[in-house]
């Protein structure tokens, strides 16, 4: 589904990603861990097409397409979803209107018929229930006045609405209390299938107690320096990153 080869990216002339190799197949869950400032969020942003970052070298293939040549919205319509670490507030734009447009674009790309107003309402209620998001929030402006937990649930709600093939969840667990974390994780698990894949970017092992990854990778100084199975996260939790970092030479 996703093949990243030797990806380099910079912001304001400073190189952040220094040659990432990474592959995801349908049905898999990957976790990317690593100390602060190692490039985890940058990696997710570059895959989403954030124009703040400049890709200086490398290739990314997504379902046979050259991802780096696609616009932000084209990537999204083709089923690449980024759950934001800090979801922005959009005053004046209601959740319902926003989702109506977003779902219409996604369905068009999937070759599906648009939903009628009634179907859309029902679909929205169903998906909101997955993350226990109050459907009254649909009449409010996007993320405006949402609590921290509601904002993160709202990201997973939108993911459910858009049925992505590849979901990148950037620190979706940060700032959540244990109940909200459980709800968010349950939502993600319910959306897992043989046809889609999830990449979790996280600092903490605790998310991985709820969403069990197939692979765990350590990103450090812009490269993936170590990969393993789910036990790697437990070892990192107990021993930290020092044993890896000390062995690593740039």
């Amino acid at each position, binding site marked *: 589904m996703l093949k990243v080869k030797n990806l380099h990216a910079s912001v304001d002339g400073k190189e952040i990603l220094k040659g990432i190799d990474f592959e995801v197949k349908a049905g898999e869950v990957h976790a990317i861990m690593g100390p602060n400032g190692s490039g985890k969020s940058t990696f997710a942003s570059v895959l*989403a*097409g*954030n*124009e703040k970052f400049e890709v200086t070298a490398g290739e990314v293939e997504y379902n046979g397409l050259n991802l780096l040549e696609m*616009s*932000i*919205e084209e990537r*999204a*319509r083709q089923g690449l*979803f*980024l759950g*934001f670490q800090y*979801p*922005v507030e*959009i*005053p*004046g*734009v*209601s959740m319902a*209107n*926003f989702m109506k*447009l*977003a779902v219409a*674009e*996604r369905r068009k*790309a999937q070759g599906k018929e648009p939903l009628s107003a009634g179907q859309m309402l029902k679909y929205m209620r169903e998906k909101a229930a997955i993350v226990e998001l109050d459907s009254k929030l649909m009449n409010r*402006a*996007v993320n405006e006045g949402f609590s921290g937990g509601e904002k993160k649930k709202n990201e997973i709600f*939108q993911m459910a609405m*858009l049925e992505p093939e590849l979901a990148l969840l950037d620190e979706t667990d940060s700032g959540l209390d244990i109940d909200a974390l459980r709800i968010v994780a349950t939502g993600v698990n319910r959306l897992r299938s043989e046809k889609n894949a999830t990449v979790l970017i996280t600092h903490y092992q605790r998310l991985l107690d709820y969403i069990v990854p197939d692979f765990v990778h350590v990103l450090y100084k812009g490269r993936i320096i170590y990969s393993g199975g789910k036990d790697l996260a437990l070892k990192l939790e107990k021993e930290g990153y020092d044993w890896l970092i000390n062995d690593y030479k740039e």
Partner: protein
Amino acid sequence: MGSDIGKRTIVLRDGDCSGCGGEWVVEAGGELELYQLCTSGRHSVRILLGEGAKAKVVFAALSAGEVEYDYTMELNGEGADVELHGLIMATEGRKATVHTAMRHNAPHCHSDQQVRGVAATKGYGLFDGLVYVAPDAQKTEAYQQSRNLLLDGSARIETQPQLEIYADDVRCSHGATVGQMGDEQIYYMRQRGLSEEAARKLQLGGFVGALLTHIDNDELRGEFERALGIDE
């Protein structure tokens, strides 16, 4: 010119008011609603309020040509009340100006001004709003808020709130913000599949559309929607 007791609605549009305006007197206990939607010329509106009289003003100043509105409200009777909701929209390369003077001449009056401004490429929007409170207009409540959105780096908006308060027992506040269409918000919407154009339109519609919530009449609201380009 007019004088009335009871409720009255005035609509000022292009065509039936070239360089229009006028003066309206709202007598004690009366109510006036005034809606204005003009796209060029200079327009001057003066409303005089008696005891307990109420006025609601909803306007959109859209610069198809150069447009300038000038509102003066004289709150002459005790307990008069004015609410004013407006939108200044300076389209590409054009200028739109709105002056307001809210003159509290009697005690226990209340006024609230909520004015939004939008300026497109090389557009120029200007709002200057005066709140005047006379020495014996005690227990006045007067509020003014100016919120503005620049659609790009070449757009310009000036907002000049002025307070002249000569009474000491009053509650008054004013505030002004100018923001640019947010890149982060556009990015967020594009990440959900909206084109950049659709994202900008949605955001602008949201900012501008807030005005419509103050128009109860469906037909009139539709007319404003069409004029603002957010009917769909």
